[in-house]
């Protein structure tokens, strides 16, 4: 009872201070146990998300970037409780959702939807497109029959597909079209928040541009908030308002996208941006070539996790883990020796 009372006051504080925070994570952790030894006792953990706090504001596009194994997808899934966080607290629209039951969570999930990377794997090949897009209504017992059919047609038109083709199967559509179907399904219930996990990474450039434009249009029309997970840095720069850079389960830098690309503060951000291939054959940029590869998250380095690959690492970096601290307007960095 006491705990519940405390929660309420915290909730109130949050909703009063920042009205426009849509999603907030406080000290979020997601550990995966590694079972080993004769009796499969848990000895170690993969710290995929390690003590991350962040806020996503209403109507913005927040992107997560980082190499594979940095924990960006796990963070995305943990934020929606698609994967139960090990520790930490989650707030959605000012309300704590960390320990909500299945039923209550289902209600909230109407407002949080996901678009996945693989437009081939994420649509059931045995279902007609109309059933795929209509399924959210079925599950939430919202619409049926003609009303549902009408809504499906509206949604198809909204994402630029011909409603006449609603009785076809996914394999009859191209990759880009399938991704549009995935988007139509995600916006069916009028959500506030969409997690787009590598949603455009598998598409060809010309198709990618079409889908990105569609996502931006829908954001304007429907007031959507996006959490965009991607490894293509140019597309992130185009679509985002703010970016979070992840390295081995830590958030190492957060900031406004253009400023951050212009003047990165963390050596890792700087390296990521400089190694990004530029569509300009004359660009002979100073490349910060990173030594080696991202270490295994089951056995991360001591101190700053980036010190093994960092060109600027000192003794302090090997011992002391830097905290994510505010640097300038809207920028936070976790580095003992930030570049700006």
């Amino acid at each position, binding site marked *: 009872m006491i705990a519940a009372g405390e929660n309420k006051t915290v909730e109130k504080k949050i909703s009063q201070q920042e009205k426009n925070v849509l999603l907030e994570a406080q000290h979020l952790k997601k550990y995966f146990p590694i079972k080993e030894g004769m009796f499969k006792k848990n000895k170690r953990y993969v710290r995929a998300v390690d003590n991350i706090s962040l806020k996503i504001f209403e109507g913005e596009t927040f992107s997560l970037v980082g*190499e594979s194994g940095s924990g960006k997808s796990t963070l995305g899934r943990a934020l929606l409780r698609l994967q139960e966080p090990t520790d930490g607290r989650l707030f959605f629209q000012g309300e704590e959702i960390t320990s909500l039951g299945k039923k209550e969570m289902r209600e909230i999930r109407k407002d949080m939807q996901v678009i996945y990377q693989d437009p081939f794997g994420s649509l059931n090949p045995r279902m007609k497109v109309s059933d795929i897009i209509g399924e959210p209504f079925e599950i939430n017992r919202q619409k049926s029959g003609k009303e549902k059919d009408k809504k499906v047609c509206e949604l198809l038109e909204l994402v630029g597909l011909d409603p006449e083709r609603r009785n076809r199967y996914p394999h009859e559509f191209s990759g880009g079209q399938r991704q549009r179907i995935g988007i139509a399904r995600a916006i069916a219930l009028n959500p506030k928040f969409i997690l787009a996990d590598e949603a455009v990474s598998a598409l*060809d450039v010309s198709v990618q*541009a079409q889908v990105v434009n569609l996502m931006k249009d829908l954001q304007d029309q429907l007031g959507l908030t996006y959490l965009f997970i991607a490894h293509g840095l140019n597309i992130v720069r185009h679509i985002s308002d703010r970016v979070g850079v992840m390295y081995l389960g830590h958030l190492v830098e957060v900031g406004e996208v253009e400023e951050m690309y212009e003047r990165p503060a963390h050596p890792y951000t700087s390296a990521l941006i400089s190694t990004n291939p530029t*569509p300009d054959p004359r660009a002979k940029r100073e490349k910060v*070539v*990173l030594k080696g590869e991202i270490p295994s998250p089951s056995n991360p380095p001591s101190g700053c996790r980036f010190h093994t690959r960092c060109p600027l690492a000192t003794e302090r970096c090997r011992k002391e883990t830097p905290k994510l601290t505010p640097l300038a307007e809207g920028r936070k960095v976790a580095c003992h020796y930030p570049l700006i």
Partner: protein
Amino acid sequence: MTGLLNVNNLSVDFKTDSGKIKAIEDVSFQVKPGETVCIVGESGSGKSVTSLAIMRLLEFENGEISNGEILFKEEDLARKTQDEMSNIRGNDISIIFQEPMTALNPVFTIGRQLMEGIQHHQKVSKQDAEKKAKELLGLVGINDIEDRMYQYPHELSGGMRQRVMIAIALACDPKLLIADEPTTALDVTIESQILTLLNELKEKTNMSIILITHDMGVAAEIADKIVVMYAGKIVEQGSVYQLFDEPTHPYTKGLLKSIPQDKGPRLKRLYSIQGTIPSLTQLPKGCRFHPRCEFATEKCLQEEPPLLKANEREVACWNYEDVIKKEVKQT
């Protein structure tokens, strides 16, 4: 000047239940010694088919060369038997693929897979093969070579596996290395390492590289020459500078325009080429690009444009003069 590789009027058919499909048609290009040629295009453009045709690996995928020649050191690979080809593959011409996990055999150690290639093509003792294998691992920038030799592919990361693949491909000092999307599955940091490695190896050995990619950024970084393919045909080819400075085919122009920029002001909307690449079974009449082209005229609907010399490169477009002059419209 003759090239190391001259592909002339190459066409490839695939046998399917619904008849023959022309996967690539009338493809001609040249690779000079020490040159890096990038074949760029979207999925379904025929870029991988072209590389498989050069390696004569098509036969295993139900494809056949229906026309044209592949002159490698003045010998026509298209006329060779598979037995003759197996002496050329891995020896004079090597190929690396996108997914290094599936390309390596999971049940053999790295060392054994490296030595297998060396011993197959060269008459050397086991000791010499082992020595050569270790040299190769060093060449591609792998540390702890003694340990790595006895590890299995699953014990290595994606970037390491791609390095091993490159080492295997280089085992017999090939004159030509074909790399089919070698960095697509890798992170940007590792991609940059691999591209740097390929460039260094090219300098050291003077081999030629054909790199297949869908990423104009990668092409800009590594290519001397770019071949742009669309729906089975070459639409434009020229030096990397010619193509980036003044794209002359509307498709090249659109492709470059739809890449989000990494600096400068951000656009509200990305330029996008309308529509999608047509299926090879339902190719439009006339120019294959005309349904998506904003420069299309009556002639484009009727007649297919040939690949001709224009604006100091080769381009297949009836209206290229317009394309150079006008900006593409923002949709």
